[in-house]
Every structure is written in C-alpha cells, then in structure tokens.
C-alpha cells in the first residue's frame, strides 16, 4: 500500500455485526487506533479510515478488560489453553458485586434480595466460616468463637476457596460486608478478585443507631427483619425471631466509628464501579436502585454508531430533540416528512410519484416511503456518522418494513407527553406572515402588540386536527413498543434541555443486561 490514509469503504455489515454480538466488549477494542493498522470509528467525529483488511487494536484502559483481564491476573504459561477455557465458561456477564455499608444500613437484606433476583450466590463472613467441609473454615471458626478477629490472610484464602467453587464461577457472587478494612481490600485485589459493581449504602448515624435497636434475626435462615420497618407477615416467623447480640446503643456507636474510619480508605480502590445509595428510604426503593445499578453495564470504549429512533405523538418534541442531537453529535437528522417533501420539491422521479398523494392530502404508501428512506440511510454519511430518525415508523407494518430493509435502530426512545401539554404546545403556535418569525403565545410571546395583531395560525394546528393526529399515534403505539426491544421511555413534559440530557444518557450508557431468570 502507499503511505496514504485515504478512507476506505467498509461494508456496513461489519460495525453492525460487531455491535450485535458485542464483539467490541468481548475483545475490548478502542475507538482510536494507530494509522495504517486500525479502524477509526469515533461516534463523535465518524471518520472512517481503515486498511482493506480490518485489523483492530486492543486498548490500554487497564480498568476495563474481560478476557484480557483474566489473562493478566493469572498469567498462565499456556495462554491459548487458558483462553479456550475462559470462552468455554462463558461467564462474562454474571454478577460480581460487593455490598458495603455501616451496621444497620440494610446490607444483608439487600444482598439477600439481590441474590434471589439475580440467582447468584451470597457470600458473607458467617457463611464462609460456618462451612463444615473446609479445613480453613474450621480453623477460622475456632478463632471466631474465641471472640477474636480473623486474620486477613485466612479470610482471603477462605474467599478464594469459596469463589473457585462451581456455583460461584457460573452464577456469580454477591459479597456482603467484605472488605471491612483497606488492608483486606488490597489483599482481595492482589489475589485477583475484582467486582464489577460496588454498592455502598449510607445513612445518617442517628438513623442507624435507632434502626439497629429494632433489628431482629430469623435464626433458621439468617434473614434480618425490623420491628418497625420490615416486620414479617407470617406468625411462625414472628415467633421465631430473636434479638441479635450487639445492638445496644454503645455497641452500635462503637461499630459506626470503626466503620467511618475504614470506609474512607476503602472507597478509592473502586473508582469507576462505585455507587452510593442512601439507605434512609424504604427498603424497596433501596433495592430497586441497587438492582438497576447492578444490571447496568459500564461505559466501554467500544465503537458505536448511534442509530436512534424517536417516537411520540405529534407535539412531543421529536423534531427539536432530533435537531439538538444532530447538532451535538454530528448525526444525520432524518425526518421522514421532510424527506418526502424534499423529494417532491426536487422534481425527481420518486418525487413525481409522491406528488399526487400530497395534492390529494392522502397518506403516501409505505413502499414509496421505505424506498426514499432506504436511499437516504444507505448514503455514506449516514453509515459513517449515524442517524436520528423521527416520523417513521408509525405503525407495525412500517416497523416490519424498516426491519426487513436492514435499518434497525440501536436506541429507541418514546417521548411521553400528556394530552393537555400537547394541545397547549401546538394550538398556541403562531406565525408572523410579514417577517416569517414563529412565536408561541405562552413560551415565546411576540414582543409588540402590533406583531400580535397580525399573527396567524397554521390550519394544521387547530385543536381538532391535533386531536386526530394524537389519536392515530396512540392507536398504534402499544404495538410499536412491543416490536422494539429495550425501549427507553422519556418524560417529554419538561423543558427541552432536560429531555435532551435524558436522551443523551440513554444513548451513551450501554443498554441494561437482561437477567437470565
């Protein structure tokens, strides 16, 4: 090859395939790459330059590997054999969670609920020691019964032993209350155990001291209840409950002080995977927040061309959001209605086909729309930079057509706006015929009375017409919602920049993983 860096054409199947099978996450490939040996697919800039045979380079972000991480931790003598075994296990996505927090914050409750929900195994200090089958555990138990602290190295050995068991490897694990000190955290790290999510519960000390006084434990399965906040409904369980040791005020205060001393030195060990949740709210809320967090994937540097679909009734702000997105991320704004009008105006062959439908005010048939849309979306700039589509599909048939043409979006947003807001937004729109300036009687009123006198309303903005369009949308919306996976619902009834931020976060964060039930 000559020493040129002219962009080459990459078949569109490649990035699509890569995204679909999460190749980039699996191999951890970066956006940037050296010239001459790389594929640059920066979502922001979209410069596609590559050699004819695509060679991807692996990135150097040390905190974000999967297979490579394992290789580096274990450094096996036979890397190929190791990689084969790793692929065989196929456990990249199992939960690996630490739950930390002060006493009485609800760690055990949350840990148990998460375990049941995610089908992972729970590891606590108690169930590590009470393991009759392990020699290490028996030694630890002896030390524990003498009321002494278990030495760190023994704890780590117990952990490693437990985590190498089949159920932890294949189903994942949730660690409750370990590590307690910085030394433990460091030892855990060096032994190769690294969580993917760390949840830290917090609450004010006074709340915790109060709460701890009401703690009750069910001795048969170790579940924790509370006299006020979480009282079991079955009377047999109620009768079984015992008051655990060490919940008096002085004891709680002492443990809290120790916790505060230690936690500030543990948290910096998990910079990007930490989430702090306030446990001074009902348990269900805490659980819901924790669950959403552990199901979310962290942002990876995988190349990603956004193919966004915005759906919503007329007046929900789709065009505005699309314009904002296109401007910020250099995406191509594809408005279906606009596209058709452009075709007619340009007097092309397709335009001639569409013109009679416009003149008779009838809906353009789906086949023609999809033809125009495909030719736009196939263009080089759409493939490079990504696109934002709005105004299509409007019903299930159109959605199926879109799918069969090969243009499935990878993010779908539904903007929810209540009926009254839509009416308010649309029926108060006015245009000034002299200057062409558009106003809104509530959000952007005309500055002078003179202008206000001459304002006119678009005939399509009357309440009856708007109502017809909204009804049309809602008739088809539930089918559309079912058609796409992973739809993100956005509250469109807010100011545009808030909605924009919400949509942005939906695009940037990877889609949540589905939990295997």
């Amino acid at each position: 090859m000559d020493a040129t860096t002219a962009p080459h054409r990459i078949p569109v199947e490649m990035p699509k395939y890569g995204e679909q099978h999460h190749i980039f996450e699996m191999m951890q490939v970066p956006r940037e790459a050296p010239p001459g040996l790389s594929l640059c697919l920066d979502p922001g800039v979209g410069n596609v330059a590559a050699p004819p045979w695509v060679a991807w380079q692996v990135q150097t972000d040390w905190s974000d590997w999967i297979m490579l991480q394992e290789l580096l931790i274990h450094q096996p003598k036979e890397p190929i054999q190791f990689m084969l075994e790793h692929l065989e296990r196929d456990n990249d996505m199992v939960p690996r969670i630490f739950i930390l927090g002060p006493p009485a914050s609800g760690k055990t409750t949350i840990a148990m609920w998460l375990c049941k929900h995610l089908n992972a195994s729970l590891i606590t200090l108690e169930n590590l020691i009470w393991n009759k089958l392990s020699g290490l555990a028996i030694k630890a138990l002896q030390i524990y019964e003498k009321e002494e602290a278990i030495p760190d190295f023994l704890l780590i050995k117990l952990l490693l032993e437990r985590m190498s068991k089949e159920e932890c490897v294949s189903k994942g694990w949730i660690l409750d209350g370990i590590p307690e000190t910085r030394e433990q955290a460091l030892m855990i790290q060096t032994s190769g155990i690294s969580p993917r999510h760390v949840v830290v519960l917090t609450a004010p000390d006074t709340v915790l001291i109060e709460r701890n006084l009401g703690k009750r434990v069910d001795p048969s399965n170790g579940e924790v209840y509370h006299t006020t906040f979480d009282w079991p409904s079955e009377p047999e369980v109620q009768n079984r409950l015992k008051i655990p040791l060490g919940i008096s005020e002085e004891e709680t205060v002492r443990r809290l002080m120790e916790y505060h001393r230690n936690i500030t030195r543990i948290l910096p060990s998990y910079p990007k995977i930490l989430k702090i949740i306030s446990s001074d709210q009902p348990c269900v809320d805490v659980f819901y927040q924790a669950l959403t967090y552990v199901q979310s994937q962290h942002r990876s540097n995988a190349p990603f061309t956004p193919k966004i679909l915005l759906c919503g009734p007329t007046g929900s702000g789709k065009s505005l959001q699309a314009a904002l997105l296109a401007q910020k991320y250099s995406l191509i704004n594809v408005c279906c209605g606009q596209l058709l009008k452009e075709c007619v105006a340009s007097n092309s062959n397709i335009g001639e086909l569409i013109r009679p439908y416009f003149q008779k005010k009838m809906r353009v048939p789906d086949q023609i729309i999809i033809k125009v849309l495909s030719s736009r979306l196939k263009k080089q700039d759409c493939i490079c930079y990504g696109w934002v589509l709005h105004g299509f599909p409007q019903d299930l048939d159109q959605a199926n057509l879109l799918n069969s043409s090969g243009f499935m979006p990878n993010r779908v947003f539904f903007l929810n706006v209540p009926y009254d807001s839509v009416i308010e937004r649309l029926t108060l729109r006015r245009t000034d015929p002299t200057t062409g300036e558009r106003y809104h009687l509530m959000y952007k009123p005309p500055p002078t009375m003179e202008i206000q006198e001459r304002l006119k309303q678009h005939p399509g903005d009357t309440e009856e017409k708007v109502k017809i369009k909204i009804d049309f949308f809602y008739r088809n919306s539930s089918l559309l919602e079912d058609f796409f996976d992973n739809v993100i619902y956005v509250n469109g009834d807010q100011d545009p920049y808030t909605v924009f931020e919400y949509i942005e976060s939906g695009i940037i964060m990877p889609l949540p993983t589905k939990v295997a039930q």
Partner: protein
Amino acid sequence: MAFEFLTRGLELTSSREREALLYLKKHRILDLLVHLTSSILFHRPDKPREFLQDMLSRIKIAKITSVDFPYLIDDSNLVSMFEIMDPTNQGFITPVQYKEALKNLGLLDSDEVIDENLEVITKDYFRKDVARKTLKMWLSF
C-alpha cells in the same frame, strides 16, 4: 507491533504492572487478539464464541504440527496486494512501499530495519518474506 503502540503512553508504577507488560510482550497476546478480532469481523460467524474457540483450538494444534495456521491473509491475497502496489506491472516495489505494507499487515516490529539498499522488492521476495515473518509470529503465540 500492537504492543509497542499500545504501551507507549503508559507509566509503569509498580512491579506487578511491569510483570504484566512483560508477560504480554513475551506471548504476543495483543497481536494474537488483533488477529482473532480481524478474523471474526471478516468471517462474521453467527456464533462468535464458538468461532473463537474453534480458531484457538486450531492454533493450539497448529503450534505442535507447525503447519496449517488459520491465516487470514493467504498467498493469493499477498499476490493481489503486490499487484495493487505495482499497478504498472514493473515487477517490483520500492522499500518504502514494502515497509508500509508490512506495517499494515502488523508484521513490522519497530526495531526492525528494512534494508534501504535493496532497490527493488520483487514479487517472489515479497511473498517469501511476508510468509516467513507471518510464520515466525504465529509460532510465538
């Protein structure tokens, strides 16, 4: 080649990290991963995990028998490459072109110097040399 590029910006802060880098370099893990990813994207199998496992087993066996590595670029591709670089069919390419070609294939180590005195690189020399370098790299995986 991948290794030099990727590790150039790193500041080594601990001996563990240095050990890890040495490990990567010794087994040429990064080059291997680059090849695996290229193969996946080129073939686009329906089951990428199984494809990867398949490729890795083939490499494992090929290491022992020293033949039949799962190359992505084979001899006919090399001939086409040469012909693209030499459109007027003179029969040779310049060392600069040759160096760029090796860079693109990922076969050029930064410390390897191409003999600038060779005025021409013929098709046969090109094929033989690339084949030799490729074999050398695969054997070290």
